[in-house]
């Protein structure tokens, strides 16, 4: 990796490592080690976000004018790689990588001023309200609605799969502001700057790993101001589309993440028996599965690099962002599956207590094996959320087969 860096990046990488050594406390490090999905433990991760902000590094991909560091793509990638290599928790994407760029693109000056600083600093955390019980893959069929009543909108309906809503103080959501017409029409993109409102209820959903990560959010005559709308009223679909592509494109580097997961598997295999007195890591069958995944990760890396260099409006950009989502998420699932196969039956131990940051409960067996099963379970969602693999293939097919 390092050999292709210019000398500047080598210095920069050292600065990042030094910074991490200096400021990351034990809990932040523990949160990094105990991250078992795309959403790391909330409190320590937000603290890490704020520490990075103090250094000016919280939003590597943001433009200078909004407080980004103005790094070229290679430097962003180097930063990501160093943070991953040091096992820092990845910053939560909802605010920084999702609603933030949408506000930059579509927001009024007032909206930018009201929301971007808190996103950048990590003072606020946003949850995403897109899916509904009857609008998953078919997002355009959503029915949560907002009606104007005087100088307010009144929201009724519900949202589901709102990540960390129980930790969030802000929310962006899609609501129907005009019934009838085509399904995509009449949808608006709302920004809620306060979730502590009458009629708004949040209910955490317990996931396969036994922990809450997603939530249901219910709206019962919830009043929000008229300036809640990002972009034009009834034109929220354009905002959502922009945001989805931005998200799929991988503002973060999947390859750096996956290489860390592979390193983790390799370490476990070196310590695990093969049942005949040798190490599993010396078993050519293990090695071949591992190498196959290294190939897939190299492809994810190459495609991310290519995508980063693409003009985001170009015709290739849409299909390639879907392609990254498919390839990366399916690769991740295979990596997670190799991890549980490498750990073997010790992966079956349920260790909810030991997984809590700051927990006194030690992991059973090797600490390396603690997260294998929760990752395997949680990341089954990786081919479902943010547009399922099937939907992504439909999207690519549309372009590929266009006459």
């Amino acid at each position, binding site marked *: 990796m390092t050999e292709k860096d210019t000398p500047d990046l080598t210095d920069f990488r050292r600065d990042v490592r030094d910074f991490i050594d200096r400021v990351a406390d034990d809990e932040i490090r523990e949160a990094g080690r105990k991250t078992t999905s795309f959403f790391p433990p909330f409190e320590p991760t937000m603290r890490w976000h704020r520490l990075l902000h103090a250094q000016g590094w919280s939003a590597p991909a943001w433009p200078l004018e909004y407080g980004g560091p103005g790094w070229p793509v290679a430097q962003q990638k180097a930063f990501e790689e160093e943070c991953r290599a040091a096992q820092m928790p990845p910053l939560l994407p909802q605010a920084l990588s999702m609603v933030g760029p949408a506000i930059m693109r579509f927001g009024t000056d007032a909206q930018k001023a009201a929301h971007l600083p808190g996103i950048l600093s990590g003072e606020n955390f946003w949850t995403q309200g897109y*899916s509904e019980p*009857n*609008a*998953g*893959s*078919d997002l355009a*069929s959503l029915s949560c609605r907002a009606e104007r009543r005087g100088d307010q909108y009144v929201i009724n309906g519900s949202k*589901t*799969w709102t990540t960390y809503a129980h930790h969030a103080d802000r929310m962006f959501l899609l609501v129907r502001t005009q019934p009838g017409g085509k399904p995509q029409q009449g949808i608006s993109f709302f920004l809620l700057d306060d979730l502590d409102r009458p009629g708004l209820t949040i209910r955490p*959903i*317990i*996931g*396969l*790993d*036994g922990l809450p990560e*997603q939530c249901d959010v219910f709206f019962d005559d919830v009043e929000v101001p008229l300036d809640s709308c990002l972009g034009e009223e009834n034109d929220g679909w354009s905002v959502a589309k922009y945001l989805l592509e931005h998200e799929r494109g991988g503002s973060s580097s999947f390859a750096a993440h996956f290489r860390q997961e592979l390193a983790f598997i390799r370490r476990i295999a070196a310590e*695990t*028996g*093969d*049942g*005949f*007195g040798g190490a*599993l890591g010396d078993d050519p*069958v*293990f090695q071949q*599965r591992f190498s196959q995944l290294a190939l897939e990760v190299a492809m994810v890396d190459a495609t991310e690099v290519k995508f980063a260099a693409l003009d985001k409006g170009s015709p290739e950009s849409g299909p390639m962002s879907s392609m990254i989502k498919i390839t990366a998420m399916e690769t991740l*699932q295979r990596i997670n*599956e190799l991890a*549980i*196969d490498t750990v*073997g*039956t*010790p*992966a*079956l*131990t*349920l*260790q909810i207590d030991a997984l809590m940051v700051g927990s006194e409960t030690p992991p*059973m*067996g090797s600490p390396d094996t603690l997260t294998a*099963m929760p990752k*395997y*379970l*949680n990341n*089954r*969602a990786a*081919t*479902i*959320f943010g547009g*399922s*693999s*099937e939907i992504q*293939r439909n999207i690519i097919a549309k372009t590929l087969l266009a006459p």
Partner: protein
Amino acid sequence: MSSLSAEMRAMLDDSVDKFLRDHYSFDAGRRLVESTAGYSPAHWQQFAELGWLGIPFAEADDGLGGTVADTLGLMRRFGRALVVEPYLGVVGLAGQAIAHSSHAQLKASLLPGLIAGEILPVLAWEEMQSRGNPAYVETRAQATAEGWRIDGEKITVLNAPQATHVIVSARSAGEIADNAGMELFVVAMDTPGVTVEGFETVDGHRAARVRFEAVAVTTAQRLNAEGAGGALLQRAIDAGCLMIAAEALGAMETLLDKTIAYTQTRKQFGMPIAGFQVLQHRMVDMYIALTNAENLFEQTVAEHGDKATVPAPAAALLKAGISQSARYIGQQAIQLHGGIGMTDELDVGHYFKRLTALSLLFGGADTHLKRYWRASSGR
């Protein structure tokens, strides 16, 4: 394949169906998972009264006179209902090790109690480095003046927190992965030096790490003739593999049914998602995976179910096949359910987790494909 009459088997199947219908709704099962014991002792007593604990044991030992093959209808139904009672560990693994013991007196002292539901022995064979190979045993059995001293650690001992006795494999001679030189001792759980570190598994079952530190046992506690525990252990594990194959098939067929039903109800883009050809073919592939695994299972049981052991090549292919289809069907059931499949509330995720566990128990697909090659090369 079966020693029980067809009528008897049908009666058993009916009694299992009825019991599960009456007592084993998904919610009822969840309550047992969340209970301290992790199963229902009352159910266990009923299993005993219904004769289920005696199915694969000789009538002379108070059993029903059946074989392991006769437990497979029950295991399949247990798979459909996500039953958490320790049938696999107690009746399957430990029960088979006891039933085929060469030590008649020890057997006679244990089986009636097991069949009556009074004692719950389990089998401790797996070790940190054994990766599905029962012959790999680091745990030592050293001869002492009074008998034997056992030292070692066993992992993933199924149902150990619920057990009264543990049957432990220990090496008295031979190299680390030799089949010869192995002993199986029956040890009461409260024996000094036995430490049980129990836990819940991701699929809602119970297991433990069990440590043996200078545990003193006598030769009277040994199930096998000296050094010959390997074959007995393999027989018990073969039985376990057949039983979890049946359980996995029950879970897989349930998941496929639920997935088909869900996709016919769930509407997106103005139609049931079962209308999309890609999802149709996915369900077809789930059906194919299930049916091929089921047919291989039935053939293996028909050919070998009544023998002392399933020949290693056939046993290995069956476990590899079950592990792979369990993975595929579990994963696709989640994928086709979408987000709702990822929740603790819905049963689908629990079937998925149980299948994940079954795919790993007794060694996964990779391990068994390697075993197949060795066995079919005569090694």
